[in-house]
C-alpha cells in the first residue's frame, strides 16, 4: 500500500517535471475523447428525448392502408375496436403535415376536441374558437408570431386561413411540440377538407400492457385493411435508429483514435535522454524493473484519466451548453425544422463506461511495451558510464 502511494507520488513528480510535453499530449487526447464523448452524449440525449416523447404516446395507433399506403380511417372502426375486452378509450385523431414554402419548414397540424391533459402550456390557453391555435416554440421562432398575433397558413384550396395564437407550448420534451400547431378539430377538418366520417388514425388505450400484442393481432384480424402500430415497435425503431447512427459515428472516430494512439506510441517510445538517465540511476540504486514499470504505467493512467475528465467536460459543454453545433447536422438529419432545441442533460454510467473502454483501454495497452522497454535498462549502465 505504501509502495503504491510512493510510486504514485513519483509518477506525479515525473509528470510535473515534463509538464509542457504532457500537457500537449493531454490536450490532444482530451480532444479525441471530447469528440467521441460528444457523439455518445448527443445520441443518448436524442434517444432519451425521443423516448420521452413516446412514453406519452398511446399503446396502439391504428392506421388504415390502401394499396400499401397510409389512408384515412373510417371513424366507425373505432366502435368495433372499443368493443374488444381490455380496450379503454379509442380516439379518432385528425392531424396532418403542412409544408410552408416561404419559411421552408414542415409543421404538424393537430386537431383537438376539448381539454388535452398531456401537454402543458407555456403560456396562454387551448383554442376555444375555430380561428384560434396553439403553437410550439419552434413554430413561434420560425414564423415569428406571439400570443395574440396571427399565424397565416394556406389551406388545401390555397385560401389564406388566419389563426390567432392563443398559446405557446411548453413540454418536458421539445421534440414533441416543437413543430406543432394545434387547432380545433372541426377547424382542421375544414382546413384539410377532410370528410367528417374519416380520421387520420385511431389511438387505442389498453388497460393491461401485456395484452397489447394480442389486441393488436385481433385488430388486424377483424379489420384486415388496418395496420396497428404498438408503442413498443416504435421504441424499437427509434432505438435501433439511434444506436445505428452513433455506432457509425463511433466507428469513424475510432479510426481517429487509432491515429492518436500511434502518436502516443511514438511519444512513449521516444523517452528523453534525461528520463532514460533518471531511470538508470534509480535502477542502479535499487529500483526493480517492476517498480519503474509500475511508476510509468501509473503515469499513463494519470494522463489518461486527466484527459478523460477534461474530454468529458468538453463534450458536456459542447453538447448541452452549445447544443452540439459540430455534430447536429450529421446526427439529426431527419428533421429540418428544429433550428435549436434544448437537449435534456442526461449522462448515464453506461455511456461513460463505453467511452472509457474505447479510449482508456487502448491508450494503456499502447503505453505498456514502451514503458517496459524503458524499465528494463541495465542497472550497471550507470557504473560503466
Amino acid at each position, binding site marked *: 500500500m505504501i509502495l503504491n502511494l510512493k510510486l504514485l507520488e513519483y509518477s506525479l513528480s515525473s509528470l510535473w517535471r515534463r509538464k509542457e510535453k504532457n500537457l500537449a499530449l493531454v490536450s490532444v487526447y482530451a480532444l479525441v475523447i471530447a469528440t467521441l464523448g460528444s457523439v455518445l452524449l448527443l445520441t443518448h440525449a436524442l434517444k432519451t428525448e425521443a423516448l420521452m416523447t413516446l412514453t406519452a404516446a398511446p399503446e396502439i395507433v391504428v392506421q388504415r392502408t390502401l394499396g400499401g399506403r397510409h389512408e384515412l380511417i373510417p371513424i366507425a372502426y373505432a366502435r368495433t375496436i372499443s368493443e374488444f375486452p381490455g380496450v379503454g378509450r379509442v380516439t379518432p385523431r385528425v392531424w396532418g403535415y403542412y409544408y410552408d414554402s416561404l419559411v421552408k419548414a414542415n409543421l404538424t397540424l393537430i386537431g383537438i376536441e376539448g381539454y388535452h391533459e398531456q401537454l402543458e402550456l407555456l403560456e396562454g390557453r387551448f383554442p376555444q374558437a375555430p380561428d384560434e391555435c396553439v403553437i410550439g416554440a419552434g413554430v413561434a421562432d420560425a414564423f415569428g408570431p406571439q400570443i395574440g398575433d396571427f399565424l397565416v397558413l394556406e389551406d388545401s384550396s390555397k385560401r389564406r386561413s388566419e389563426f390567432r395564437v392563443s398559446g405557446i407550448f411548453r413540454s418536458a420534451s421539445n421534440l414533441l411540440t416543437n413543430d406543432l400547431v394545434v387547432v380545433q378539430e372541426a377547424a382542421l377538418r375544414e382546413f384539410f377538407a377532410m370528410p367528417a366520417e374519416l380520421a387520420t388514425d385511431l389511438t387505442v388505450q389498453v388497460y393491461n400492457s401485456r395484452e397489447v400484442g394480442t389486441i393488436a393481432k385481433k385488430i388486424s384480424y377483424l379489420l384486415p385493411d388496418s395496420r396497428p402500430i404498438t408503442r*413498443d415497435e416504435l*421504441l*424499437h425503431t427509434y432505438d435501433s435508429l439511434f*444506436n445505428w447512427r452513433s455506432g*457509425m459515428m463511433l466507428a469513424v472516430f475510432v479510426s481517429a483514435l487509432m491515429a492518436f494512439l500511434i502518436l502516443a506510441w511514438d511519444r512513449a517510445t521516444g523517452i528523453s535522454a534525461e528520463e532514460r538517465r533518471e531511470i538508470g540511476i534509480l535502477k542502479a540504486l535499487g529500483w526493480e*524493473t517492476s517498480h519503474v*514499470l509500475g511508476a510509468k*504505467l501509473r503515469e499513463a493512467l494519470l494522463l489518461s484519466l486527466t484527459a478523460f475528465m477534461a474530454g468529458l467536460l468538453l463534450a458536456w459543454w459542447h453538447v448541452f451548453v452549445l447544443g452540439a453545433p459540430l455534430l447536429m447536422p450529421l446526427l439529426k438529419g431527419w428533421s429540418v425544422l428544429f433550428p435549436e432545441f434544448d437537449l435534456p442533460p442526461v449522462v448515464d454510467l453506461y455511456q461513460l*463506461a463505453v467511452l472509457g473502454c474505447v479510449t482508456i483501454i487502448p491508450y494503456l*495497452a499502447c503505453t505498456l511495451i514502451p514503458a517496459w522497454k524503458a524499465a528494463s535498462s541495465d542497472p550497471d549502465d550507470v557504473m560503466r558510464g
Partner: protein
Amino acid sequence: MILHPGILALLFSSTLILLLLLIAGGVALRIVRHWNSASGSATQLQLERQTWLVATLLKYVIGFQIITLFLLLFTLDEIHPLFVGAMCATGSLNANLVGWLVLLIKIGLVFAGAMWLALNYLDQRTEDTPLVRMKYLLLLLLIPLVALDLWLQWEYFSGLRPQMITSCCGSLFSAEGEGVISTLAGLPVKQGVPRFFAVVVLYAVLLLANLRWRAVVLRNLLFVAAVLLFFASLAALVSFLSLYIYQLPSHQCPFDMLQGHYYYIGYPIYLGLFMATLFALLPGLCRPLATTNSLQQELERIEPVWLRLALFGLMLFLVSSCWQMVFGPLQLLGS
C-alpha cells in the same frame, strides 16, 4: 448485427485483449524454449526482464477482461428493449444460443487469469523461480480461450436481430422451465434455503480449519467446497436471493442488481463471491505445485493471507446478499 456503441466497444476491447495476449504468448514461447536459470548469459538476462513484461501484460489482460465482463452485462441490459419479451439482461442473453456461452467464457477467463497471476506472484517471490516453464506453458493455454471469447462475442452480436422474441428471467428461471438452470432455480425456497446455507456452513468450517491446520487434505477439501459454494451461490442468487433483493416475488434476474436502482448491491455480492471462491481455490491448487523448498516457504507465508481474503469475501457476499432476506419486508417462508 446491431451497430450499437457498446457492442463496438466490446468487440474492440476484446480484439485488443487478444493482441496483448498474443504478444505475451510470443514472449512465453521464447521463455519456454530458452530459459536456463543457471546461465549468466545476456539472453537469460533478457528473458528474465521479459517475464516482467508478460506479468504486466497479463495483469492488464485480466483487468480489461473484468471491465469488459461488466461492459457486456451493461450492454445486455442496455439493448434489451430491442428484443420482444426481454425485460432485463437475461432476455438479451436468451436472444441467441451463444449468449450464455460468452458470459461463461468471460467469467472462466477472469478466474483462470487470476489464478495465473497468483502462480506468477508465488514464483516471482522465490529466488530460483522453479515454476517458470509451467507458468508460460499455462499462459499459452489462455490464448485459445481469449480467441474463443472474441469469436463467440462476434457470433453472438452478429446473430442478434432486433425484434427477436426471447424469454426473460421470469420464465427462464421459473419452475416450469426446462434444463439445468431452471431446475436449479426452480427449487422451492423451502428446500433451496437450507441447501444453500448447508454449503455455506461447510465452506466456512473448512476455511476456519484451514486457517488452523496445514494438512494438504484440508486444502483439497476446501478446493471442492469453493467450487460448490460458487455454483450453490449462483443458484441461490437466481432462485431466492434475487427475490429478496428486488423485493418482488417473480423477478429473478442475476444482473439487474448491478444497476443503480438497486443501489449497485450486485457489486459487493459478486466481488465477495469471486474472492471467496478464488482465494479458497488457490491453496488447494498451489499445494501440488509447491515441489521445492523455496515455493513451500512462500506458500506457507501467503496461504494465511489468501484464506483470510477468502473469509472476508464470504462475509462480504453473505452480508450484501442476505441483508434483505433477514431485514427486508418480503417474506417467502411462512414464519
